C-alpha cells in the first residue's frame, strides 16, 4: 500500500535530481509510471480477499487520521490514473520535445506529484485524507496550468486556484467539519455514516455543500476553471483535465454518496432529486456551449464538463444501475476523452492548429490521428461497439428505475448534442476541402511517441466494450446490500 | 543664564540641601511618605537645576554621560540583586527575611532600604538623562 504513494514521490525526486540530463529524466518518468501501475495492479489481489485493514499513516488530532484503505471504486480510479499515466508520460515526452517547452523538469515533477495525490485520493479511508490529497492535487497542478508563464496562463492559473480553493475551503471543508460535529467520524463506511445522525434540512444542505464543494467535479456553476485550465500543454489537459483531476472530483462525489450518505439514505429520502436535475442541466448546457467553441481544446473541455455530470447524475440516482453506470462512466469517458486530447495535442504538434475551423483537410494529412479521434468521439457519444455505450446504457437504466423519465430524455438528447459537437470535427478534417498549403511545409503525422499512445487508448475504447462485463463484476460490491 | 549672579549663587547654595533632602526622602521611604521614586526625582532636580543655570557642558563635567548610563542600570541591578539574595538564601524572590536587621525593633530590613536606593539611583539618573537629551536636541536646533 505504501508503495503506491511513495513511488510517484520517489519518481518526482529522481526527476528533480536528473534535471541536467533530459534523457535519463524522461526515462525516469516512464519507469516510475510503469512501476506505479505494477504496484497498483498487485493490490488487486488483496482486494476482497479479506477485510482490508486501514493503513494509518498518522493521527492529526484524536479521531482524525490520515489513513488509507482499499475498495473497488478507489481501485478502479487508481488503476485508471496510473495506467493512463504510463501512456501519457510517453506521449508527454514526444509532445514536450516536439514543442521545445521550457521548464520540463518542473513539468514532470509536478506531474508525478499530481499522480501521487490521485493515489492518495483513490485510497483515502476517510474524508480528511480525501480532502488533504484533494488540496495537494490542486497545488500540484497549479504550476502545470501556468506552465507557459504568459499573462493568459497566469490569469488562468488564478481562475483555477480561485475556483478550486474557494469551493473546497468554503463549501467542502465546511461540510466535512459539519459532518464531523454531527457524527464524530469521517471514515468511509459502506451504507454511510450520516444515517440517523441528522434530519432532513441538514442533510439536504450537506449534500449541496458536498456536491458544489467538490469543485473538481465541475458541476455548474462552478465549472469555469476547467475550460480556463486548457492553456496548459496537451498532456496535462489529457491526463489531468480529462482523467486525474476531474475524475478525482466525480470520484469524490461518488465516494461521498456511497460511503458518507449511503445510497439507501438518499434513495429513501429523495434528497438527491434536485441534484439529478442540476446535473442534467449541466449536461445539456455544457453540450450547447461546446457546440459554439471554435478552439478544439475548449470544445473538448466543455464536453468534459457535460460528461462529468453524467457521473454525478449516476450518483444522484442512488440506485444500483445508476451508481454502477456512473462508476463505469469514469472509466469509459477517461479512455475516450484522453484519446481526444491526445489527438488535439498531436494536431497542435504537427500543424500548430488549435481551432476547429482551421482543421479542414487535416484528416488526409494525419489519417491515424484522426481515425483515433473518430473512435474516441464515438465512444463519448455512446455508440457500440465502444466502451461508452455500456455506461450510458446503465445510466439510462438507472433513470428508468428511478422513474425519472425526463432524465432519460436528457441523456438521449445529450448524446445527440455530442454527435453535433464532435463529429463535425472529424467530418471537416476528412471531407472539407482545405486551403492549399501556403507555408510550403507539409503536415505529417506527429512524432511516434505522440501517435503511439493515442492508438493505445483508442484501442482501449474498443476493448472496453467487450470487457464491460468484467468491469461490472468488479464494481458490483459497491451496491451490494 | 550664566551671567545671572543671583541664580548662580542661589542654585549653588541650594543644591546640597536638595541632595540631602532627596536622600532623606529615599531613606525615609519605608516608614513615611517618600521612597525611591520621589527621592530620585528630588535628587535629579539638583542636577537639573545645576544644568539649567550653568549649561550642559558643566553638567557633563560633574556627571558624565557614562556615569548616568551606568547608574541607571546599576540601580535596577541593585534591586534585582536584592531580590536574588532572597532566592539564593532559600527564600522567595524579593523576600527581605535574609536581610533583616537583627537587634533593632524599629528598623525595617536592609533589603527594603537597598531596594529604595536602587530605585532612587535609577530614577535620578534617568531623569538627568531625559533632561540632557532634550536640552541637547534643543541646543542642536539653534
Amino acid at each position: 500500500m505504501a508503495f503506491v504513494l511513495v513511488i510517484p514521490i520517489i519518481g518526482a525526486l529522481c526527476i528533480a535530481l536528473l534535471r541536467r540530463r533530459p534523457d535519463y529524466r524522461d526515462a525516469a518518468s516512464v519507469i516510475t509510471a510503469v512501476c506505479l501501475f505494477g504496484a497498483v495492479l498487485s493490490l488487486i489481489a488483496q482486494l476482497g480477499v479479506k477485510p482490508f485493514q486501514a493503513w494509518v499513516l498518522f493521527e492529526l488530532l484524536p479521531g482524525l487520521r490520515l489513513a488509507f484503505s482499499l475498495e473497488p471504486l478507489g481501485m478502479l480510479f487508481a488503476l485508471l490514473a496510473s495506467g493512463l499515466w504510463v501512456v501519457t508520460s510517453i506521449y508527454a515526452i514526444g509532445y514536450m520535445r516536439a514543442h521545445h517547452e521550457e521548464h520540463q523538469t518542473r513539468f514532470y515533477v509536478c506531474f508525478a506529484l499530481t499522480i501521487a495525490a490521485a493515489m492518495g485520493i483513490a485510497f483515502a479511508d476517510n474524508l480528511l485524507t480525501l480532502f488533504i490529497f484533494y488540496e495537494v492535487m490542486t497545488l500540484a497542478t497549479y504550476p502545470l496550468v501556468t506552465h507557459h508563464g504568459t499573462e493568459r496562463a497566469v490569469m488562468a492559473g488564478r481562475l483555477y486556484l480561485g475556483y478550486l480553493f474557494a469551493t473546497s475551503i468554503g463549501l467542502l471543508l465546511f461540510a466535512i467539519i459539519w459532518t464531523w460535529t454531527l457524527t464524530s467520524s469521517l471514515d468511509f463506511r459502506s451504507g454511510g455514516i450520516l444515517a440517523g445522525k441528522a434530519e432532513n434540512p441538514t442533510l439536504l444542505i450537506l449534500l449541496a455543500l458536498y456536491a458544489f464543494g467538490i469543485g473538481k467535479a465541475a458541476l455548474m456553476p462552478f465549472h469555469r476553471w476547467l475550460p480556463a485550465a486548457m492553456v496548459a500543454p496537451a498532456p496535462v489537459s489529457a491526463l489531468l483535465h480529462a482523467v486525474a483531476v476531474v475524475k478525482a472530483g466525480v470520484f469524490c462525489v461518488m465516494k461521498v454518496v456511497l460511503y458518507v450518505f449511503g445510497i439507501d439514505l438518499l434513495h429513501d429520502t429523495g434528497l438527491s432529486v434536485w441534484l439529478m436535475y442540476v446535473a442534467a442541466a449541466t449536461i445539456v448546457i455544457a453540450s450547447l456551449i461546446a457546440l459554439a467553441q471554435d478552439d478544439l481544446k475548449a470544445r473538448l473541455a466543455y464536453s468534459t464538463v457535460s460528461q462529468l455530470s453524467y457521473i454525478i447524475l449516476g450518483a444522484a440516482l442512488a440506485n444500483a444501475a445508476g451508481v454502477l453506470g456512473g462508476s463505469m462512466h469514469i472509466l469509459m469517458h477517461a479512455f475516450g476523452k484522453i484519446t481526444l486530447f491526445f489527438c488535439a495535442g498531436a494536431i497542435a504538434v504537427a500543424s500548430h492548429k488549435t481551432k476547429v475551423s482551421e482543421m479542414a483537410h487535416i484528416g488526409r494529412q494525419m489519417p491515424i490521428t484522426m481515425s483515433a479521434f473518430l473512435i474516441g468521439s464515438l465512444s463519448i457519444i455512446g455508440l457500440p461497439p465502444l466502451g461508452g455505450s455500456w455506461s450510458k446504457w446503465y445510466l439510462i437504466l438507472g433513470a428508468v428505475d428511478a422513474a425519472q423519465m425526463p432524465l432519460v430524455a436528457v441523456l438521449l438528447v445529450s448524446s445527440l448534442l455530442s454527435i453535433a459537437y464532435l463529429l463535425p470535427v472529424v467530418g471537416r478534417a476528412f471531407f472539407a476541402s482545405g486551403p492549399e498549403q501556403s507555408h510550403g511545409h507539409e503536415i505529417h503525422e506527429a512524432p511516434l511517441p505522440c501517435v503511439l499512445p493515442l492508438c493505445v487508448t483508442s484501442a482501449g475504447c474498443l476493448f472496453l466494450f467487450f470487457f464491460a462485463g468484467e468491469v461490472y463484476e468488479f464494481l458490483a460490491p459497491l451496491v451490494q446490500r | 543664564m550664566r551671567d545671572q549672579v543671583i541664580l548662580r549663587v542661589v542654585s549653588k547654595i541650594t543644591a546640597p540641601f536638595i541632595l540631602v533632602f532627596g536622600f532623606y526622602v529615599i531613606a525615609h521611604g519605608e516608614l513615611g511618605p517618600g521612597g525611591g521614586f520621589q527621592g530620585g526625582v528630588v535628587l535629579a532636580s539638583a542636577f537639573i537645576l545645576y544644568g539649567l543655570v550653568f549649561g550642559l557642558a558643566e553638567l557633563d563635567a560633574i556627571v558624565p554621560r557614562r556615569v548616568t548610563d551606568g547608574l541607571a542600570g546599576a540601580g535596577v541591578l541593585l534591586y534585582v540583586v536584592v531580590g536574588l539574595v532572597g532566592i539564593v538564601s532559600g527564600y522567595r524572590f524579593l523576600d527581605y527575611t535574609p536581610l533583616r536587621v537583627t537587634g533593632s525593633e524599629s528598623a525595617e530590613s536592609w533589603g527594603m532600604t537597598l531596594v529604595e536606593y536602587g530605585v532612587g539611583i535609577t530614577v535620578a539618573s534617568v531623569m538627568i538623562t531625559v533632561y540632557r537629551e532634550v536640552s541637547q536636541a534643543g541646543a542642536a536646533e539653534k
Partner: protein
Amino acid sequence: MPFFELYNYWIFILLMMIGLYTIIASPNLVKKIIGLSVFQTAIFLFFISLSKVAEGTVPVTVPPAEVYSNPLPHALVLTAIVVSVSTMAVALAILMNIKQAYGTVEEDEVDQAEAH
C-alpha cells in the same frame, strides 16, 4: 443630591475628555502628548478620589487613627505616575526624532512630507 455627591467622577471624566479631545483634535504632536498626559492624570485623580474615606486622616500615624484613608491607591498611582513619566519621556524622544527627520512636529505636515 447624588448627582453632585459623586462630583469626583464628573471631574475625572471631564478631564479625561479634555485629554482625549486634545489627542484627537490637535494636529500638533506635542499638544497630543500633552493631551495624553492630561488623560493619564485624570485617571490618577480618579484613583486618589477613590481612596478618600470621609473623615479619614493620613494613614501613617503612630498609633494608627481610627478612620484613615486607604493608602493602597496612592501607591498604585505613584507607580502609574512613573509609568506615565516614562511614556512621556519616550514620546518626547520620538518627537525629537520626528522633528529631526521631517523638520516639523505638525502631523499634517509630516503626512504631507510623506506623500511626496
